[in-house]
């Protein structure tokens, strides 16, 4: 093995041009041999790959396997440059956008310099590297750089092009890049965490689903930034990478879902696509991670997320453009930038020059997350002001309604209970018989109960009103020996059923029942309440009703003597008709064959 390695060194020395290169020296190809491990039989074999150009990705050549890459590079240094470097006592800077990230290197057979070489775990995203090639190890003419990189499957192990240049200048450049990257990650993460907490708080207050989804998505994004700060994670590589991929995929999927929720126009196919995406992402990514094969992410989930985002953004942009809503437009544009950058990154990642050099998407995410934050704040503000306005208006309406209601109640109690009490007082004064007083007192009580029933909140349930009515009337019917057959089905909600409506219905029905008890000499009454579509009822012409609206039909059929033509009954009927008109209802009182009367009240529900 060792001998083979030395053969490389000699070969490359021979192959190299004798001319010394000016700085910076770019190493874009090198001799490579790899040690591939076989975990099953605990053996490894060394393979010669010859001259390979950079960037070189381990996973492309040896997916699902671990091992070590042994790179050997050859570069020429001018005599004067070497003298100058040795004079400075520093050396040369070696920088690469991606190296490793567990590696060791040496120049001209000097002792190995190790970077993370003994770390058990690594991670997917690797940071740019800078190493010093110490002055004392450099020599004029041919120099040999050996670089060993340990690789684990799905850990983005590999090497991008290496640049050898002036130590202080390249270190400064490296620091700048690193700080920019770190700063960006820190900003993105903090912003996302803030948006996450903000939307979580709004969700807690409003219970609006979209805020919760935004919150989870932003939490994913914030956590996704963690690999900028952790070179060697404390958990196994495959676990760390799986979590990272999942976070990314769900961030994209959930944000698409939110965009769908924010647009009122439905798109079932997109909903279905997002649903499938969200449901299948976790199992496939986990399966890939367990098999130590991250290709499922690169080949499927990364393009799928970009595609999904692209489609969602296009819809979102179109919809928000039509709404001519400034914030929505800005947001759509910024998300559009994410897609373009994402596509660019994807193309770069697949191109030979790529591998860790494309990072535009992170910048655009920062912008789009900022836009999401703005939109959330605006949406919350709108919601609050709407609620406030609504509350204010409602308050005003309630006040007015309460005042009207109070006046009506006073009037009503005055009319019914008041006059009855005066009547009672006159009976007492006239020393009326005990049973007359008793009957009259009960009538006053009944009046009062009816008035109170009318103000009970029944939440639009007319059946309860009818039921309470029966409850009140039953003793009187029993006393008159009239059998009541009750047939009330569950009725649809009568949205505008207020005290006034209830009172009209009560009075109409009471009038009908009073007639039956006092005049009809009936033995049996059939009370039916049904809900039906108005265009099916025979009383209204179907072509006149544009949409089928629901009606409640109440019918009271007795087997009494039928209608008499007395003027008092006529007045009662007029009164009932007037009340029915105020309800928007129709009342029909007809004679039944062979005997009895049929009263029908049709009340529109909406």
């Amino acid at each position, binding site marked *: 093995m060792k001998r083979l390695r030395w053969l490389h060194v000699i070969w490359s020395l021979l192959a190299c041009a004798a001319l010394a290169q000016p700085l910076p020296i770019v190493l874009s190809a090198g001799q490579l041999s790899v040690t591939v491990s076989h975990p099953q039989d605990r053996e490894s074999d060394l393979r010669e790959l010859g001259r390979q150009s950079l960037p070189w990705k381990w996973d492309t050549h040896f997916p699902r396997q671990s091992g070590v890459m042994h790179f050997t590079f050859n570069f020429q240094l001018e005599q004067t440059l070497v003298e100058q470097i040795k004079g400075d006592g520093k050396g040369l800077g070696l920088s690469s956008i991606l190296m490793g990230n567990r590696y060791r290197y040496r120049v001209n057979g000097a002792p190995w310099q190790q970077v993370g070489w003994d770390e058990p775990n690594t991670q997917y995203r690797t940071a740019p590297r800078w190493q010093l090639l110490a002055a004392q190890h450099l020599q004029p003419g041919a120099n040999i750089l050996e670089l060993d990189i340990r690789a684990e499957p799905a850990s983005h192990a590999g090497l991008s092009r290496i640049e050898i240049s002036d130590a202080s200048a390249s270190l400064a450049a490296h620091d700048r890049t690193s700080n920019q990257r770190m700063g960006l990650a820190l900003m993105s993460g903090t912003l996302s965490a803030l948006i996450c907490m903000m939307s979580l708080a709004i969700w807690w207050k409003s219970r609006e689903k979209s805020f919760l989804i935004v919150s989870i998505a932003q939490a994913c994004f914030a956590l996704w930034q963690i690999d900028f700060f952790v070179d060697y994670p404390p958990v196994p590589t495959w676990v760390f990478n799986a979590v990272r991929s999942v976070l990314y995929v769900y961030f994209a999927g959930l944000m698409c879902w939110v965009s769908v929720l924010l647009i009122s126009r439905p798109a079932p196919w997109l909903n279905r696509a997002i649903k499938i995406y969200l449901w299948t992402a976790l199992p496939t990514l986990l399966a890939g991670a367990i098999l130590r094969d991250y290709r499922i992410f690169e080949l499927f989930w990364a393009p799928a997320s970009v595609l999904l985002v692209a489609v969602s953004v296009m819809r979102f942009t179109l919809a928000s453009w039509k709404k001519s809503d400034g914030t929505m437009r800005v947001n759509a544009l910024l998300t559009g930038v994410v897609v373009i950058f994402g596509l660019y990154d994807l193309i770069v990642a697949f191109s030979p020059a790529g591998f860790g050099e494309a990072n535009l998407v992170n910048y655009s995410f920062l912008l789009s997350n900022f836009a999401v934050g703005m939109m959330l704040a605006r949406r919350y503000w709108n919601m609050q002001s709407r609620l406030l306005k609504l509350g204010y208006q409602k308050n005003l309406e309630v006040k007015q309604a309460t005042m009207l209601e109070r006046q009506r109640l006073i009037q009503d109690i005055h009319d019914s209970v008041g006059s009855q009490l005066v009547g009672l007082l006159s009976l007492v004064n006239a020393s009326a018989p005990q049973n007359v007083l008793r009957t009259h007192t009960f009538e006053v009580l009944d009046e009062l109960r009816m008035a*109170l029933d009318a103000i009970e909140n029944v*939440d639009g*349930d007319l059946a*309860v009103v009818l*039921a309470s009515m*029966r*409850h009140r009337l*039953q003793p009187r019917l029993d006393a008159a020996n009239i059998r009541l057959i009750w047939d009330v089905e569950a009725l649809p909600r009568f949205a505008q059923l207020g005290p006034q409506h209830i009172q009209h219905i009560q009075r109409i029905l009471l009038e009908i029942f009073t007639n039956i008890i006092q005049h009809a000499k009936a033995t049996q009454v059939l009370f039916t309440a049904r809900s039906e579509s108005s265009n099916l009822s025979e009383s209204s012409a179907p072509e006149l009703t544009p949409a089928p609206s629901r009606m409640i039909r109440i019918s009271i059929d007795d087997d009494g003597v039928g209608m008499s033509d007395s003027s008092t009954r006529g007045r009662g009927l007029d009164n009932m008709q007037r009340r029915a008109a105020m309800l928007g209802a129709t009342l029909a009182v007809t004679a039944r064959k062979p005997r009895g009367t049929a009263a029908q009240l049709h009340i529109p529900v909406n």
Partner: protein
Amino acid sequence: MLQKTQPGQSIGIRRNQPMKIAFVDDSPQMRQMIASVLALGFPDAQVTSFETLAGASAFARENEQDIWLIDLGLPDGSGVDLIRQVREKFARTHLLVITVFTDADNIVTSIQAGANGYLLKEDMQRDLPLVSTIEAIRRGGTPLSPLIASRLLARMQIPALPTAAQQKTSQPPLASGLSQESGAPEHGLTPREVELLLLLGRGYTYLEAAGLMGVEIGTVQTFVKRIYTKLAVNSRTQAVFEARAMGVML
């Protein structure tokens, strides 16, 4: 009228012991009337009466009664507190609310606090009923008015109105399948009990409801008795739920 009773007497069957009835009402006329009605209806009973919540409460703590008649609007507090107090200590005492008019919300609250029934004061003036109501309460529960039944349903969050599927059928929609729709019922009522409450809320009498449900009137009374008990048991869960709902609203 105030008679001493021995605290800590055994509960349960008291066939050979005089029945113990206590009541609280702030109106002297009402107290007199109730006392005379009770004296006529239950000549052997030990009857104790109170004017205030404080007096009744102190007595209730020490003395188990067979029947408590409780007026809700007392000068020094609500009778609901007394109901709760008695119910917590004595599971077998029958609690009857006596009130003016159908104060639906207070009655529902009383039932949830543990009352077994209610009686309207004006109904006591008719040829009815205190004695027969007490008998009814011991058999089952006292009648539930439609409004009370519908309020109870609303509190249990059971829709009193038909669903689309039920509306299609011409039959009066019964509660078959209703409990399945609402998932595992938190209120603890069986579908049959819910069905009964729905029918009562629509104005059917016990007898008619029994006919529609295809059971004996005695079964309906048993249902009512169970409804009273379950609603009292579940009132705590309900209170927790309402508190949570309010927390969400804030």
